[in-house]
């Protein structure tokens, strides 16, 4: 069957099987920043934004996202031009093996897009669907705080260093 979606801002028409799982479809497109660690919705490594909402792409049939706007980790920024949240994860030392990192960043983005200044409990809540085996989470919390400040600074001083939100 045919699937029409926008992925990281680009309109795509894809041929998919009815039972195809979104995470697999994205990875087959070469978007391997979306990781698959458990396929049970527990590790959160496969998190992507679907119309701005964070979702486990391992639990989502691709056919269900017809017409949707998908944002993967690659859609936030790249090495030359990283998103402030990506920069924050680097600065905080929140990355070890890095396998959970794309999912953590996607969950963070979903949170900060809606709540620019979340409480600690809201941060914990937002990250409670993502597992990390390396860091003990402390530096990931630090990264969210750094990201919060970066984004606030960028939107507060009028001349944005934050690039316009990619559609």
């Amino acid at each position: 069957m045919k699937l029409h979606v926008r992925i990281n801002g680009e309109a795509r028409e894809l041929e998919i099987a009815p039972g195809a799982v979104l995470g697999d479809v994205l990875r087959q497109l070469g978007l391997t920043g979306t990781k698959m660690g458990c396929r049970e919705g527990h590790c959160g490594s496969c998190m992507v934004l679907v119309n701005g909402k964070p979702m486990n792409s391992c639990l989502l049939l691709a056919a269900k996202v017809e017409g949707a706007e998908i944002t993967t980790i690659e859609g936030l920024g790249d090495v030359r031009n990283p998103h402030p949240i990506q920069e924050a994860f680097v600065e905080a030392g929140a990355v070890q093996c890095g396998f959970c990192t794309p999912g953590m960043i996607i969950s963070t983005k979903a949170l900060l897009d809606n709540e620019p200044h979340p409480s600690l409990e809201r941060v914990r809540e937002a990250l409670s669907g993502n597992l990390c085996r390396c860091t003990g989470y402390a530096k990931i919390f630090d990264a969210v705080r750094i990201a919060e400040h970066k984004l606030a600074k960028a939107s507060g001083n009028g001349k944005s260093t934050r690039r316009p939100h990619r559609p």
Partner: protein
Amino acid sequence: MFIQPTTLIEALEAKRQFGSAAAFLAGGTDLVVLINHGRMPARVFIDLSHIEGLSQIQCFAADQCADDPLTRDFDAAKVFVCGPTTTFAQLARLPVRALAEAARSVGGPQIRNRGTIAGNLATASPAGDGSTALLALDGRVEVQNLYGSRVIALREFFLDYRKTALAPDEMIVRVAFPATWLTGWRKLGKRGAMNISTVCCAVGISDSRRVHIAFGSVGPYPLRAEQTANYLTEALRGDPAAFGDPAVQKHAVELAQAEVRPIDDFRASADYRRAMSGTLLQKVMRQLAEELTPTTSAIV
């Protein structure tokens, strides 16, 4: 095959046509796990996400409910009616504590954005948190096929392990439960998030002070504890402070432990689950005692 109906009738037609070879697909949080494990659960997926209005929550006053078999006689001043694809995230915001807390305890936030009330009921997992809370609210579902609809009380909905009263051509179209009951919830698991219930307990007290109790993970499906509920209803009639009375708590705990039907599995032993059914009930009673008679000082 992937069918994307835009009306309920189309969805029911498809279900009629393919019967048990077809599965309704809402959030997919249970169904896609099966696909991931190489067990394709159906040949045909009927995606409900393009039908409008299926995730609406409405609130009706009792006098608006009299003509609808789904909502009448709820012993409540107000009744909530949810569409089948109402998500846990939506339920988590409702002012019905047992259901809201149960919903908040399901999976992580992303799962709660996708998992639905009808999916939870139809999956009939013994550990279904949402189902357990709805049982303690004595909720009802309206199920529909191409030819008509019927109302099933949830107390009659679960038949056996992962088996429900739903016919192959039927779909849950509405879920109703009281909005004004006093309720309580406690869940026990192994970690702080993405937590599968080892045991969970929900209590609902109707507007006229009738007690309803349900447990999850202590039987083949979520169970109601009728005798315990009857005992507490009587106790509450005799003494509004009964929930705070250690003797009443003790007796209720014993009754509940006798009513549950837990098994041993790798998540926990039957002994522990039985004991915890009582303990969680006691914890919920302490919590509710505070609200039934605000002078009692309770610590949960």
